[in-house]
């Protein structure tokens, strides 16, 4: 019996496996940030122990950071304290920090890949659920809580039960105007926000294979939004080409050796999955969410489900959700006015996302009453965008290119959508209050968000490309 890619990587990282106990799994890279690490460092202090493997731990400040005037001290006192504490903790425990002002600073799931820290075959954890992003490289990557951050800091291992395996195949070719964000929003809308809970997902099929690395990251990033522990994609020539030459990627003889290993990282043809789901890329249209969990998504031309189409049990949550959103069951979203456009987050803030938006908006102007925030995923993305003149295109369109951070994805800094306002957002969550108290979020692709920025309303981007 062959093995799945997931099992190949997991098995090679099990340090101790005892009946009745979860496996002690070795972690190759541990990313930390300011929000979920302070209590973990405190735990180490209380136990009087060091960080076990400092070289395998990397830190950055992203969740709390302002996206303008980053050279000035952070205004908000609690945010400033948390970011300062990361500096103190990493310096006391000897962990490398890409803090504010550092050329590598950025959203933790953007900088790992772009620096060549994220590699195929690795195990990667971070106190952040979107750690699944790194799975795009053929790595086992998943989010953990702060107690687990402490475990990994203390021992470079984590205790985990082996999840079940799910394969999601997307066959065929994407239609014009449909991008990787639409694929993952479509899958989640089909299987719900809990459809993959308890599973680790491998994405496969022609439509996935033909995606760039950055587009694959968008897919893996949102695995958690259907409850999956993580999602991964077998590495291939696209993966290797992306990694080669990056700052921390193996070089010379090390590269050849690593490559030979990475080429063995695929699911054997006779391996078994617990569940296999198959979708056709041709069925996917630009997607948008109407509700308050990422499973509440529809094609942009479709109508919000009517109450009659729902189970009795689903109705209270559904009604609560639509009431929050100020929307009617059975109505359509197309043409609905939007107030804010947010292009950013670990889902869609990489250079390709910005290029996609720039290509689309070049020569166009944003609608007058729409506020457009574009937040690059990292200092490197920001620098590259400026090098390519993308910042000028945005400026001419009336968009605001800000500085890197998590920003309005979760509104921990000042970038909050005001109460009652509608924001079309390339981020990953449309939960109540996610982008600010009583803010209303429509999740969509960077292309659909850019289209809404130009027209000022929910738009079928296919009519404009």
């Amino acid at each position: 019996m062959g093995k799945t890619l997931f099992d190949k990587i997991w098995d090679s990282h099990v340090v101790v496996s005892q009946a009745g106990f979860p496996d002690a799994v070795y972690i190759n890279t541990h990313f930390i940030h300011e929000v979920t690490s302070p209590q973990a460092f405190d735990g180490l202090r209380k136990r009087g122990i060091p960080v076990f493997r400092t070289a395998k731990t990397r830190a950055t400040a992203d969740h709390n950071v302002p996206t303008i005037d980053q050279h000035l001290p952070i205004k908000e006192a609690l945010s400033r304290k948390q970011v300062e504490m990361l500096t103190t903790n990493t310096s006391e425990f000897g962990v490398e920090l890409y803090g504010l002002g550092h050329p590598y600073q950025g959203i933790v799931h953007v900088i790992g890949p772009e620096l060549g820290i994220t590699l195929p075959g690795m195990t990667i954890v971070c106190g952040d659920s979107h750690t699944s992003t790194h799975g795009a490289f053929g790595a086992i990557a998943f989010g953990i809580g702060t107690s687990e951050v402490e475990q990994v800091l203390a021992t470079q291992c984590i205790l985990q039960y082996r999840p079940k395996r799910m394969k999601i195949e997307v066959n065929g070719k994407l239609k014009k105007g449909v991008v990787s964000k639409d694929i993952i929003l479509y899958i989640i809308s089909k299987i719900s926000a809990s459809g993959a809970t308890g599973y680790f997902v491998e994405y496969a099929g022609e439509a996935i294979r033909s995606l760039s690395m950055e587009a694959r990251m968008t897919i893996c990033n949102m695995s958690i939004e259907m409850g999956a522990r993580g999602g991964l994609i077998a590495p291939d020539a696209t993966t290797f080409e992306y990694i080669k030459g990056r700052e921390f990627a193996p070089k010379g003889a090390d590269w050849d050796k690593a490559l030979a290993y990475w080429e063995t990282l695929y699911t054997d043809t006779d391996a078994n999955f617990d569940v296999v789901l198959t979708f056709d890329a041709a069925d996917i249209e630009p997607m948008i969410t109407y509700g308050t969990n990422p499973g509440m998504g529809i094609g942009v031309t479709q109508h919000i489900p009517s109450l009659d189409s729902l189970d009795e049990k689903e109705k209270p949550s559904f009604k609560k959700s639509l009431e929050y959103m100020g929307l009617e069951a059975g109505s359509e979203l197309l043409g609905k006015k939007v107030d804010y456009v947010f292009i950013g987050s670990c889902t869609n803030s990489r250079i390709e996302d910005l290029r996609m938006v720039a290509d689309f908006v070049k020569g166009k102007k944003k609608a007058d009453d729409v506020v457009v925030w574009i937040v690059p995923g990292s200092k490197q993305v920001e620098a590259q965008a400026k090098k390519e003149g993308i910042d000028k295109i945005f400026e001419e369109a009336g968009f605001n290119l800000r500085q890197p951070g998590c920003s309005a994805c979760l509104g921990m800094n000042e970038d909050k959508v005001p109460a009652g306002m509608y924001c079309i957002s390339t981020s990953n969550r449309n939960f109540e209050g996610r982008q600010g108290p009583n803010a209303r979020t429509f999740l969509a692709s960077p292309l659909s968000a850019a289209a809404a920025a130009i027209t000022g309303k929910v738009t079928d981007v296919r009519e404009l490309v």
Partner: protein
Amino acid sequence: MKDLPRKAINMSKNFQHLVSTAVPIAIENIDTDQIIPARFLKATTRDGFGENLFRDWRFESNNEPKKDFVLNNPIYKGEILVGGKNFGCGSSREHAAWAIGDYGFKVVISSFFADIFKNNALNNFILPIQVTDEFLDKIFSAIEKDPATQLEVDLEKQSLKITASGEEAHFDINPYKKACLINGYDDIDYLLSLRKEIETYEAGREFNF
């Protein structure tokens, strides 16, 4: 087989048996952003999160309590929280478990839990009990009829009982986590006891990444 380490950091938190009334929130997909909104994640200790548990469901923007929310209704109290399917989805923030624990809940019952939340709860000595949709309905309707409905949790027997009706459900928990809860062990104690095995593993790895 290695024994669990005897040292127990959180011995005072051990858990075996609980009889309590419960607070019902019959909403599905309660995400951790609702349990504790992101703007309250700026604290650097584990304490005090209970104050902001379900902040935006519990309080108006002017900080007035919302009268129709269950936590503001004195009829409902207890150390057990009952939530709809897919409880704790979304962000991995352990602050959600800290908020639930700090508010005074020791048990959360649902018909389905998100994975990360479940781990976070267990790591904080909060017991997530997964029951069938049918049994969850029974609990919700029992509480709806009588908010003083008592539930009995027996971790050793892995059973949950609605006291008045005597209806009982068995729940699953992995044996390791059960032992941790009953004895007040935590994962780090166990992992630290594996130091030698970890170093041996590292020495045998072909790649240094």
